[in-house]
């Protein structure tokens, strides 16, 4: 009795929570900002790589020539991410 009643009550509670998006819609979740966080994460990761390379050259692990080539490539990739972020915001890419 206790088992059956509890199961029905709990199932009703769960149903109320999980079916809400179908009844009320998904609100904020539909905003077209889905990939912003991904791009922000990619940007931070790229920045980290640039900083790592700079730290490596400052610590003498990388030669200045090697660092210059790596840094140029990484900055190019970072700029691409920044452009995509601006496009996401509806801005024209900066000149």
């Amino acid at each position, binding site marked *: 009795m206790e088992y059956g009643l509890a199961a029905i009550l709990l199932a009703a509670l769960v149903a109320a929570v*999980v079916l809400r998006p179908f009844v009320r819609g998904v609100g904020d979740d539909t905003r077209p900002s889905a990939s912003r966080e991904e791009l922000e994460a990619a940007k931070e990761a790229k920045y980290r790589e640039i900083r790592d390379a700079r730290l490596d050259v400052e610590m003498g692990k990388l030669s200045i020539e090697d660092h210059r080539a790596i840094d140029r490539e990484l900055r190019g990739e970072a700029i691409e991410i920044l452009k995509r972020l601006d496009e996401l915001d509806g801005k024209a890419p900066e000149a």
Partner: protein
Amino acid sequence: MAGVGSACLLVGLLTAVYAAGVSLYGARTGDRAAVVSGRRAIYCLAALLLAATAILQSAFLRSDFSYKLVAEGSSTDTPTFYKVTAMWATQDGSLLLWALLMSIFSTAVLFLTRRSLRDIAPYATTVLAVIAGFFLLLMVGWENPFTTLANPPVEGAGLNPLLRHPAMMIHPPMLYTGYVGFAIPFAFAIGALIVRQTGADWIRATRRFALVAWTFLGTGIMLGALWSYTELGWGGYWAWDPVENASLMPWLTGTAFIHSIMVQEKRGMLKVWNASLIIATFVLALLGTFLVRSGILDSIHAFGASTIGKQFLVFIAIVIGGSTALVISRLDDLRSKARLDSLMSREAFFLVNNLVLIALCVVIFWGTFFPLISEALTGEEASVGPPWFNRLTTPLALVLVALAAIGPLLPWRKASRFGLVRAFRAPLAVAAVTFVALLALTNAADSPLSLIMFCLTALVLTVVAQELARGAAARRTITGDPWPRAMAQLVARNRRRYGGYLVHAGIAVLFLGVAASSAFQEQRDVRVSPGDSFDAGGYRITYERATANLGRDSAGTGAPISFGAVLTARRGDETYTLRPSRNFYPSQDASTGPIGRFFEGEATSEVDVRWGLRRDLWAAVRPDISGLEPAIREGNEKFAGSNDTVQAVVIAALVDGYRNDPPPATFRVIDSPLVSWIWIGAAIVLLGALIAIWPSPEARLRRVTSIYAARLGKELSRA
């Protein structure tokens, strides 16, 4: 309330099935309402399992023996701490803990990714729901922790005495958190493979979960080792037991994974390898959970034979088959365009490190499952022992520690000759000096492999110190900060890098302790009477007197009887007192008699250790109570019908008799050098891991408006 608990599990199972189905529907149709509904179902699942756990914990605290689990795993005299933790000392309770942790981790990752990874997350939700659903199915179908007894006993059987140890009570949740944590990157890897988004997005979203899992699993393994050292009475910390090995294997592949994902993040390489590694890690985590429950291999840690071994095997087979097929079908998407620029680069050494870790895992897997393999091939069960494991794993461990030193010194892409010379000069010099000093001043040469490990430890520690010093110096040239501030800022702004280096230092220190304590340990087993003395290692030990306690044991485990000894250890001017003992827990077997049951139940060693940075002095005692047997037999006959008070007086008289006229006792005393550095190394690893896990300030959002290149420079200069 048992009915409500069972209802939580049933509704939880239905919720997991719903979450899996609706998320899959949302993923395939793009219906966001379905995706959000699936995510909410996982949140509900966590709430249901929290409620179920609270109900069960309440039953343990109330000593409600109408619950079968409480009657079998607790008793009224079990200390409160052990009542709280007794849940996961049982098979059914540990399944509930697994499912609860799974649902909490799933809730956390799905909440954090609710606005990102829109294509991957719904498939990951399906995978997470299926895993949680499997554990719920086991509980609903076979091992319900809310099973009740029609005729509850007046008293419970009590918690297994061997488990009455603080480390052992924290150890299972740590291990399970580690196992469960690896399910998160696994689920997102599967999602990424399904939608063919094989970049680093899924890694970035779940990397921290993998690190948390790795940290918890490692901490759990070390707590198990500490328990073995201080509770099991044999004096070691690692026995290559199948269940110990089962927890080490996913940790090894997890270690490989958290290294190799850096290569994918930075270079877009090793995609197949990373997907395979996380699949292997999760499968090994499931295997570890299965081994404890299947009864297929003998282990002190296992729950014994159970009814859910086959179900686990089927689930593991489905995970392996499905994941492998998925990886094979996505090989084209996983192919990397980038190539190794140089063998002298960090990514090349990460690959070597991965190969060594996998080799270690393969060796341990082979040794662990050898009894099954030999039985299948020859019909006879044979097993390999610790010497086999030590012989094969020691050289690999040496290579691993060497790589822990070399890796941090190499830059990404390629190292210059000048850079290599500059980076390796000081660490190699320190390692060489260490080698000469150890040869000249100690007997380290008696164990060449240990000598190599000592030198490699010096190499790793110098590398880490040098990296910190050079990094801080580079920062000082930019900011002009004083040394301590420059060092703190350097670590704070590069947490992943320097946290990782600290982990390397901790691992090296840990291996230093392992090498020294295993090669130079001196053990003595003797049987002596009070007043006798003997030598053990560098100590002169005297058995001063016997101890016998009724109703209070020094470790607070709730043992009613404890017999022990007071030992005095002398070494030069140093004098220590050690009090090892052995706890006796009442037997539930009525045939042992009303008096005898207090002496013939389970007994556990309560070892005493004189901890030290240079050496540990470890002592265990095995009192000989055979002399009490005639009196116990007589007591069983004479006082069978007496009340508890009378019987307690008789037991007290027997305990006094042992104390006043003790027979010879058997002692094991171990003089073990540098063993404390194992625990210190583990603590350093934990600290380093916490630094690496902690979010970096750079994760905060920044906005700028200048042109891109200037904007980039500006943003970079802020960090």
